[in-house]
């Protein structure tokens, strides 16, 4: 059903048409009544008196709980891979820690100790970041929320429930049968029956309610032989934290601290080189608070104390006289719900540990990569000034692999997870929690969930029997994990008799078939033309039946691309669609000796370009690569034909 039709028909028609309109359902439209009468509680109208909760049942293939960056990635990937999906998010906006409610920077792998330094994640997270610059060069966080919203709701097969919390589960032995979610804005309980459940909610209330094994706290050194771990295990997790954004008023402005502000012990704090006020634009990550008992149970108390500390620090900055640069600066925005770094970590068939990251353990089930440093924040945060704000234990020489077995529950058979709540040790989480990494995991979990639903297997079965297929699908969808080139038997480009380009300034056309869709350190995998209006041609000896050509183009993965609260931090970035990226192209097939255009793309915004068309029988494909978003030549990494 077309979107407009949906609005015309209204919720009733859409829901009646089979619960799920094909186009992303509009979540709040849950009333199925066309009754226009005045409600009068005296009359005892059903639904007004007694139990006011509305009840609905949804049947889907995959239910994703939590609409942070990992949940978005999971839901969209599952939907794109053919599953009927519902995404349940308890806040009015998507994005989790990255949303306008918290404004955490969408970081990815950087500061590697190799020539690349930055190794940007590809797949869903990269699509989102590019799209953000297209719609939101003004770097507005509320607009970013809606960029995410647009990205999610345009996905067919995906229904989004905002303002909806997962409350309880119904089990069938070791399987989740359904999850009940309450949408507060509509006073409606949704019972969601699904084949697969993905908990991407960070805290993992659904998974915990299902009885999934989890840990919270720090492992001791001995358990996983982690040299940076504390000697003895304890309950500390990394802390919650508020962000802020300020504005320059152009003249001195006073600041009056609220009554509950806790005075800041600047002298002790500044002894640590990390606790510094290097800018007055966007908050301080070291103003954080954690717990060694139950960070979830204490969250609201932590929120209050954190606000008190935050204002104490700001009071110091504004009123101590030590920060003249803050004289004209006023607070413009401060978060009200703390961003969360760590709580439950659910246990999978594998627990990724410090040594795997540092030693780059090679897994036969790699599904994502990471490479942020082991950035373990101090237990206690701002209330523990004796320890450094973070232990930057170690950086990485190369990106490491994350295995699939970290993404599904050891004891609940149809439960997957992605994001900061996956099966890693506390020490490994100090690196894997970075949003780019979380999002790649989300893409893997969503893709896996869709495959499980389709094949009727559980995630462990998928690992045992279909791991290669999962990896191939992820690589096809522009994920990447090191040392695992794609080799999809369905890809007909692999069988070409010849591939050549109209010109070559670097690399080689045949590198587009080598299964690696980015340049690796000292290993190129690209072809680059001399100029624009170039052509790439593939030719088979025998005719092929084709329905799509899929290509991966350059977006410069060694340049950062995220939005910042402090525009100063955009230096070296490009605010806009990467100029290297292809803008316009067309695909032609040679049919009976004539070149026939079978598809084209205009104003392309994605690295992965899939051009689908009605089946053609052909012996040659020609791609006309017309122009980029600014670069003077065309660079690409892969071409596939299906």
């Amino acid at each position: 059903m077309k979107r407009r039709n949906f609005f015309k028909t209204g919720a009733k028609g859409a829901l009646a048409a089979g619960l799920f309109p094909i186009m992303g359902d509009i979540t709040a439209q849950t009333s199925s009544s066309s009754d226009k009468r005045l409600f009068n509680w005296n009359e005892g109208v059903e639904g007004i008196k007694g139990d006011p909760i509305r009840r609905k049942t949804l049947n889907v293939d995959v239910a994703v709980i939590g609409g942070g960056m990992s949940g978005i990635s999971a839901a969209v990937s599952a939907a794109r891979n053919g599953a009927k999906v519902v995404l349940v998010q308890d806040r009015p906006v998507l994005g989790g820690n990255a949303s306008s409610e918290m404004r955490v920077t969408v970081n990815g792998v950087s500061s590697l100790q190799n020539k690349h330094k930055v190794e940007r994640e590809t797949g869903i997270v990269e699509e989102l970041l590019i799209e953000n610059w297209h719609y939101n060069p003004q770097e507005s966080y509320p607009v970013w929320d809606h960029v995410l919203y647009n990205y999610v709701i345009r996905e067919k097969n995906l229904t989004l429930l905002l303002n909806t919390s997962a409350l309880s589960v119904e089990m069938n032995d070791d399987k989740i049968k359904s999850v009940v979610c309450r949408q507060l804005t509509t006073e409606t309980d949704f019972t969601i029956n699904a084949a697969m459940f993905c908990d991407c909610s960070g805290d993992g209330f659904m998974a915990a309610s299902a009885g999934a094994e989890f840990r919270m706290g720090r492992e001791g050194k001995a358990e996983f032989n982690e040299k940076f771990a504390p000697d003895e295990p304890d309950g500390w997790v990394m802390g919650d934290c508020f962000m802020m954004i300020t504005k320059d008023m152009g003249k001195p402005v006073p600041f009056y601290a609220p009554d509950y502000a806790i005075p800041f012990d600047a002298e002790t704090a500044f002894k640590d080189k990390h606790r510094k006020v290097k800018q007055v634009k966007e908050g301080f990550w070291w103003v954080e608070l954690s717990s060694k008992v139950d960070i979830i149970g204490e969250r609201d108390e932590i929120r209050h104390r954190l606000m008190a500390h935050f204002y104490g620090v700001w009071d110091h900055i504004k009123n101590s006289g030590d920060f003249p640069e803050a004289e004209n600066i006023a607070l413009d925005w401060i978060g009200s719900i703390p961003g969360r770094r760590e709580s439950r970590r659910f246990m999978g068939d594998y627990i990724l540990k410090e040594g795997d990251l540092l030693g780059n353990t090679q897994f036969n089930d790699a599904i994502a990569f990471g490479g942020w440093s082991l950035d373990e924040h101090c237990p206690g945060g701002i209330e523990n000034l004796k320890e450094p704000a973070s232990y930057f234990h170690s950086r990485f020489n190369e990106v490491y692999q994350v295995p699939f077995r970290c993404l599904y529950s050891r004891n609940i058979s149809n439960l997957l997870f992605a994001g900061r709540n996956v099966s890693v040790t506390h020490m490994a989480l100090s690196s894997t929690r970075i949003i780019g990494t979380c999002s790649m995991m989300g893409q893997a979990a969503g893709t896996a969930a869709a495959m499980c639903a389709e094949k009727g297997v559980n995630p462990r079965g998928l690992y045992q029997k279909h791991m290669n297929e999962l990896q191939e699908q992820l690589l096809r969808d522009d994920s990447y994990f090191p040392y695992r080139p794609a080799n999809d038997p369905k890809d007909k480009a692999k069988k070409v008799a010849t591939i050549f380009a109209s010109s070559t300034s670097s690399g080689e056309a045949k590198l587009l078939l080598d299964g690696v869709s980015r340049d690796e350190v000292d290993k190129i995998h690209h072809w680059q033309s001399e100029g624009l209006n170039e052509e790439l041609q593939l030719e088979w000896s025998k005719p092929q039946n084709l329905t799509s050509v899929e290509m991966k183009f350059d977006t410069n993965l060694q340049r950062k691309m995220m939005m910042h609260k402090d525009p100063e931090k955009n230096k070296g970035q490009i605010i806009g669609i990467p100029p290297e990226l292809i803008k316009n192209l067309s695909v032609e097939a040679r049919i009976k000796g004539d070149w026939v255009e079978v598809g084209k793309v205009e104003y392309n915004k994605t690295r992965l370009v899939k051009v689908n068309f009605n089946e053609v029988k052909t012996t040659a494909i020609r791609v006309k690569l017309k122009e980029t978003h600014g670069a003077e030549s065309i660079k690409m990494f892969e071409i596939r034909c299906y």
Partner: protein
Amino acid sequence: MNFNKILILLFFPIWFFFQNGEDSSFSKIKKIEHQITVGHPGNEDNGLEQSILVEVRNKKGLAVEFYMNVESVICVKSVCKVVPVRIYWNNLGGYQKYELDKGVTLEKYEADLFEKEDYVKLQSILSDLDSPFKNVRIDEILTVVDETHNDADAVSGATALELDEEDTVPGAALTCFTLWHWAHGDIETIIRNFAGESLKKQNFLKLLNSKNVDKQLFAVEQLDERKIYKKILIEEVIKQTTSNNKLLKTAVNYFENSDSKIYFSAIKKLLQKGNESQKIVSLNSLLKSELVPPKGYYNELSLLISNLKSYQEISLFLRLMKSKNPNSLEVVSQLIPLLKSDLLISRNVYWFLKKQQLNKNQEQQLNIFYKEYQDQL
């Protein structure tokens, strides 16, 4: 750039030996001062700076060397001491060396002085065309390097400069960065163009014959820049290009900028004598060219079909004929034998021929081909 005048000024004792030549006589060593405008990535928005580039011409009036005085550190908020440095280039715009005034020293972070080996290392950094400084940004250098590349605080450390010890003078990254970008970049083109102005026919021939690709490229580029199309020079360019793919792009560009007579004849020669890449580039050039060829040109080209070996060459040739010379009897008769070539080629030829006017015999051959390969078409 138009301000050429004789330089009377002398900066360094090392120039002493030139002093006798400091008059304006053309038979002596001469220095010409060029006022130039050049960008530096260390300036805000790659901002341009005015500067004076000195060209040194030998007794024959040929540019042999260039130099320019620059500041050792480019920076808004100066972190370290700024001293003048003189940078030297050869006449191809290639960096040669740097010199300091007597008694002048370079400084590192926190007022440490350069050690002897630091000067040596600086020279090797500046000589390296692919030095990491090529892609480093000034803000990465100005960010104090510390460990923090924490999440919320990502930038200070995440983009802070990370270089291998061998690639930089520790503590003097800003100096390395500043000087590297003075030594390389737009200045190279500026120098080449000045140097090109002093070249005569014989000089061009010598450069083209030098067997040194850099010199050859310089010659072709300057011929193009100055629109010189003397027969003997064109022939030399073709000769050299057919034996070196590295000249191809610049040479074809040079021909494309000439008139149609020169262009078509040069391209034909490349097709006659060139290797596969040279033929591909030539055919692509013809395909895109809007110049009008001499009569019968494409028919003559078809005589070169036997020179074309690879599938890509043949398919380009067929495209060319389709768009510029359809229904030519010569072309058709040259192509018929290719029906016996390997499948990729013969198939393409088959489709081409199918759209041409053929005689009975040719039709027959086409039918034979079709019968044999119909399930591979």
